Structures are given as C-alpha cells and as structure tokens.
C-alpha cells in the first residue's frame, strides 16, 4: 500500500511523467499508480505531453558518415551476441553430455535409486525485464540450466540497492541476492537453489519492498 493518497499523487504525477521524480517518492508513486486506475490514466496522459516536448527541438544534420558508424556498431554488437550465444550453447552442450554420462554412471552403480534425475544443462533463456511503472524495457535476465541467473539493467531503474527476487510459478518469493544500480545501470549474477521454471518471475525489489522492474520466464527449452 502506497503512503500517497490520490490527492498527493496528483501533485506528483507531472514529475513522475517527466521522469524526474527520484528515490523513495518515485517508488511510492509507482506503487500507488500500479494500484489506482485513475491516477494511472492521469500519469499516462501527462507522459504523452512530456514525451512530445523533445519534438520541439530542431532537426540537425549529423556529421558525415554518421549512418555508417551507427550501422557498424550495430553489426559489431550483433556478431558479438552471436559469438556469445554460440559459446554459451557449446558450454551448455558439453555440460549436458557430462550430466548424462554422470547420471548413467550413478544409475549403473545404484539401479534401485529413486532420486530425481539431475536437471540437464540448457541454453540460456532470455527474460526481458520491464519497468513496472512505464512498462518500457529496463534490461534483461538470463537463466541458464534452471539455476544460474544473470540480471542486467540499463534503462529507467533509479540508482540504489535492490533485492533480486525470484517468485516461482507456485510458491513464495525468495531473495537471490542484492544488486546495485547506478546511473540506470547495474548487473548481478548468482544462483537459485530452487529450479527456475517457466512462469517464474524475476524482479528487482527496492528497500521499501516494491518491485521496480520484473520479467517472467518463458519456455525453458
């Protein structure tokens, strides 16, 4: 429950829409907006006006070669991403093979074992993290092997320390660790003792217990 009333929220709505509300006030305002359709509608209308302001600036011709330089950067990042995915896939495949061998060795040594089989290694599953207030992309999380988690944000998350929280499709939320965000950027890597399955939610939760961004794990291959 937010500490703000609708009247107080109307006072803060312009600053929230302009993206200049900070810290605790922003967290409280976002929580109120999430629970109040009227205030949410007001913020969206004001955001539309705020977003129109940049249209008033003059258009300018960028320096010669600008287009080429932008496209080169995109192509470089694309190649790097492909290499990263290929490397991860290769590592995952190797671990999967070793896991299968290990399971078979264990089964051969204990044919009466009824313990669940080891979870096979899997390719990383990308989870888009979205800002809870504006709904815009805030970053990505990657889940590998059902347990390894990497979270990175680069947009819209206020500076501060956040709890990386996992909420399983069924069950209570649990903390995986703490992540620091500075100048909208931050990253965290760690492990979940519990297997992360499809429908689980990863969120960054502020000191007041409010999620500032979250993503839901899709199909785990």
């Amino acid at each position, binding site marked *: 429950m937010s500490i703000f009333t609708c009247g107080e929220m109307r*006072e803060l*709505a*312009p*600053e929230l*829409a*302009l*993206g*200049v*509300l*900070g810290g605790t006030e922003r967290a409280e305002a976002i929580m109120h907006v999430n629970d109040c359709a009227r205030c949410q509608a007001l913020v969206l*209308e*004001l955001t*539309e*006006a*705020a*977003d*129109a*302001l*940049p*249209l*008033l*600036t*003059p*258009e*300018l*011709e*960028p*320096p010669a070669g*600008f*287009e080429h*330089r*932008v*496209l080169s*950067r*995109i*192509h470089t*990042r*694309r190649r790097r991403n492909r290499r990263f995915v290929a490397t991860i896939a290769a590592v995952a495949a190797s671990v999967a093979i070793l896991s299968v061998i290990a399971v078979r060795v264990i089964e051969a040594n204990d044919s009466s074992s009824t313990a669940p089989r080891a979870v096979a290694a899997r390719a990383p599953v990308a989870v*888009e993290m*979205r800002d809870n207030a504006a*709904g*815009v*992309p805030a970053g990505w999380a990657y889940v590998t092997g059902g347990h390894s988690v990497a979270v990175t944000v*680069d*947009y*819209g998350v206020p500076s501060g320390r956040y709890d990386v929280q996992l909420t399983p499709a069924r069950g209570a939320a649990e903390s995986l660790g703490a992540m620091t965000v500075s*100048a*909208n950027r931050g990253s965290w890597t760690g492990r979940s003792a519990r297997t992360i399955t499809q429908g689980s939610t990863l969120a960054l939760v502020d000191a007041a217990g409010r999620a500032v961004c979250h993503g839901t794990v899709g199909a785990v291959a």
Partner: protein
Amino acid sequence: MWSVSDDALVAGLAAGDEDAASAFVRRFQRRVYGLARTIVVDDRAAEDVAQEAFVRAWRHAVSFDPRRGSVVGWLLTITRNLAIDAVRVRRPVAIDPAVLVGLAQPSGEREPHELAQLGVDTERLRAALAQLPEEQCRAIVLSGLLGYTARDVSEADNIPLGTAKTRIRTALIRLRAALMNEENTE
C-alpha cells in the same frame, strides 16, 4: 523503403534486416542528432549520444509496442534520457529555454506524412508552450528536456522548492490540455 511505416521499420530492425536498419537510421538521424545536440551542446558528445540511441533502439526493437506510443516518441525518449545522463556526467550547460522554443521548427516546413508520423501537432504544442508564463515555460523545458528535478529547478532559479513544483506541474497540465483539445477537435 522510405514509404515503409515507422512500425514496419522497427519490426525489420528487430528481425535483423540490414535494409530496415539503414532506412531507420536515415529516417530519424536528423531528429535524434538534433535533440542530442540541443541537450548536450557539444558536437562530439551529441554524436556519441545519437549513436548510442540507435544502438539501444536496435537492442530493444523486439519489445517495441506501437500501442504504447509512436516510434519517434520512443526513440526521442531514449535519446533524451541518454543525453541527460551525458550532461550529468559532463556537468550541465545552461540553455535558455526560450531559445529552445524559438528554435522549434514550424510545422509548415515539414512534410505532411512526417507530421502524421509524429502523432502530434508540434506547432500547436509550441504555441501552447509560448503561451505559458515565462517562468513556467522555463521550468517545463528544464525539467522535460534537460531532466532537471524540481529541486534542480528551484536551485537554478533560486526559488522555493514548492514554487518549482507548482511551475512544472502547471505547465505540464497546460500542455496536456492543449494536446487533449487537439485530439478532441480532430
């Protein structure tokens, strides 16, 4: 390629279509660079910001939702936030908001299809801004374009925090009313 809609270009960008990426950059580079240059002032820094804005747009193109707003609005929001971050790092350079308003390009110089893509009548918005009292105009431009918090505005203009908040709030509500009025008369 130039007749392709903005939404389709973003979809092509997300799909890794190089022609779409090229057309996307060509279509918006003047607008993105213009906004970046207006905020950061420095040419080199403006190009860095503009380049990064396009790279971010490419990275997030797959999640662009046209129901949430126009492509140009989305792209300029990315640009503005990056430019504000750059200015914060380099320390702010004072820009007279009146200059910004005066520099806004009249709609008569734009192609009709471009205005439709913008999804807003910039001339009407500019007129609404010009009708604001000078102190409100300055407050909303400092806040909306340069990312000044209410406290930043109060310190920059040497006014109480409450006054800065009131100026920002009143100005944005008036701009919103101008845009709503535009929608209602269409």
